[in-house]
């Protein structure tokens, strides 16, 4: 029948609210995000009526209202274009903003001359760089000693403002020579902050063919990056999966908007031809994951119609998962690092073209015990790691 709605026709748009409770209608022209899947489930808030009915049956429950759980998987494709989009314009980044990630936009590339004192893990930058500690965490940096082609870029994991030294999560084959040029390209970076300030609230529209579901006050309950290596045996892409709590704003009849060819024309880059370093050692691996789980709730308040204030993020935990090729102890000693709880950085870079090159850096993690297993006939070692830093514990960077 012509009025049946088709499940494959899905679109999602997301907008930043001016404040809690202030629904901002997402605009299909500017706010669509390219999702692989979306979920929007509605839950009842009910209370059991304790009244005895004089029968074996309980009283009908009292209906307090509805809430919603929203989720989606976003294949990681950058904004593309000649330069980073305006602040807040990259729609997937709005989810990160709601999760307490700061957005930093560098509009144009800058060059500088390497100073004296660089090492294979630190580049001495020009004294005109920022004097603020940590300023360049998450910034991409390019130098001939870092590599060639796409691999010429590393991501800064720590930065000393007093000495303008950028520490990188890899070990270079040669020390960058004094006086040679480095480049900090134009970039868009999302850096996990402390959530000391209230993050933004989101409004979201989910179209399912001819019907649109609008939500407001979305706060994420989880944000996860999954970066699987793409090859013959594994043909999946890096993605960002999110889930959150929201309130239902409206459900209306509205035809699903199509993604523009400008968005669909940007390929989702597979994780290959890039870099993976653990503790500054280049390792073969299959998967890197980084998940932040948030506890979201609203404080009790009898003055509110719903009996509670707006959703807040109350707490969060972060976990890293890795699936790595087993290698000789002499090459990388997991056991020793686990016992010593050695703090180490993780770096993953991949991409295709300007504005579609990604870096995920975790400046400091320590390992849980890793266990051997099988992956396509090879011995793998899988396990979890935990970030040790509270501030700037992770950065997702896109560069041009």
């Amino acid at each position, binding site marked *: 029948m012509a009025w049946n709605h088709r499940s494959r026709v899905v679109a999602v748009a997301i907008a930043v609210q001016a404040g809690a409770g202030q629904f901002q209608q997402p605009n299909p022209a500017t706010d669509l995000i390219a999702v692989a899947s979306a979920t929007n489930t509605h839950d009842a808030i009910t209370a059991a009526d304790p009244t005895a009915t004089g029968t074996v049956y309980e009283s009908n429950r009292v209906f307090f209202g509805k809430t919603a759980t929203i989720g989606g998987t976003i294949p990681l494709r950058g904004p593309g274009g000649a330069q980073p989009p305006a602040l807040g314009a990259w729609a997937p980044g709005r989810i990160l903003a709601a999760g307490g990630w700061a957005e930093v936009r560098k509009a144009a590339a800058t060059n500088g001359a390497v100073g004296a004192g660089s090492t294979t893990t630190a580049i001495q930058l020009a004294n005109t760089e920022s004097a603020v500690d940590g300023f360049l965490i998450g910034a991409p940096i390019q130098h001939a000693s870092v590599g060639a082609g796409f691999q010429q870029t590393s991501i800064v994991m720590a930065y000393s403002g007093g000495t303008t030294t950028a*520490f990188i999560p890899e070990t270079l084959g040669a020390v960058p020579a004094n006086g040679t040029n480095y480049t900090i390209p134009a970039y868009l970076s999302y850096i996990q902050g402390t959530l000391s300030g209230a993050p933004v609230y989101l409004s979201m529209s989910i179209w399912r063919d001819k019907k649109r579901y609008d939500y407001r006050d979305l706060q994420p309950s989880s944000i996860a990056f999954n970066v699987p290596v793409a090859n013959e045996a594994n043909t999946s892409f890096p993605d960002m999966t999110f889930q959150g709590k929201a309130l239902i704003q409206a459900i209306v009849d509205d035809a699903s908007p199509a993604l523009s060819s400008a968005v669909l024309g940007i390929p989702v880059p597979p994780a290959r031809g890039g870099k993976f370093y653990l503790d500054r050692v280049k390792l073969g691996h299959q998967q890197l994951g980084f998940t932040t789980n948030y506890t979201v709730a609203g404080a009790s308040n009898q003055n509110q119609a719903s009996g509670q204030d707006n959703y807040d993020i109350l707490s969060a935990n972060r976990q890293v998962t890795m699936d790595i090729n087993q290698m000789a102890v002499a090459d990388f000693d997991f056991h020793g690092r686990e016992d010593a709880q050695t703090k180490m950085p993780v770096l993953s870079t991949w991409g295709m073209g300007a504005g579609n090159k990604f870096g995920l850096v975790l400046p400091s993690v320590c390992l849980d015990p890793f266990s051997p297993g099988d992956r396509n006939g090879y011995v793998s070692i899988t396990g979890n790691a935990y970030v040790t830093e509270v501030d700037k514990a992770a950065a997702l960077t896109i560069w041009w």
Partner: protein
Amino acid sequence: MTTDKNSPKIPLGSGSYDYDALKKAGDDAIAKHKGDRAKAEDAIADAVDKANRSPSKDADPRYTPGYETVKRKGSTGETETIQVPVAATDNEADADAEKAAAPEPQPRSPVAAKS
């Protein structure tokens, strides 16, 4: 992680920042309070707050006109920055008087709007 323990740090919180504006704000704060790490970090925190281009910031009541930034000692002894309402002024009283004198807006009839 290796950083210079004598350099002030930058707290980003959650917001949107232009790289150049953020760099200038941080460097200016350090230049102004050279040698005083605590003051420089306070100044950087203020500068970062001002550099935040988060769309929701302007609508946050903590940042609306009529509020001011003050510093106070937190429960752990750390200096924290908070926004508090400023006392009512004559201008505000005048604005209230103007508001009281203005005619009440009339609700539009949906029927009239359709025709």
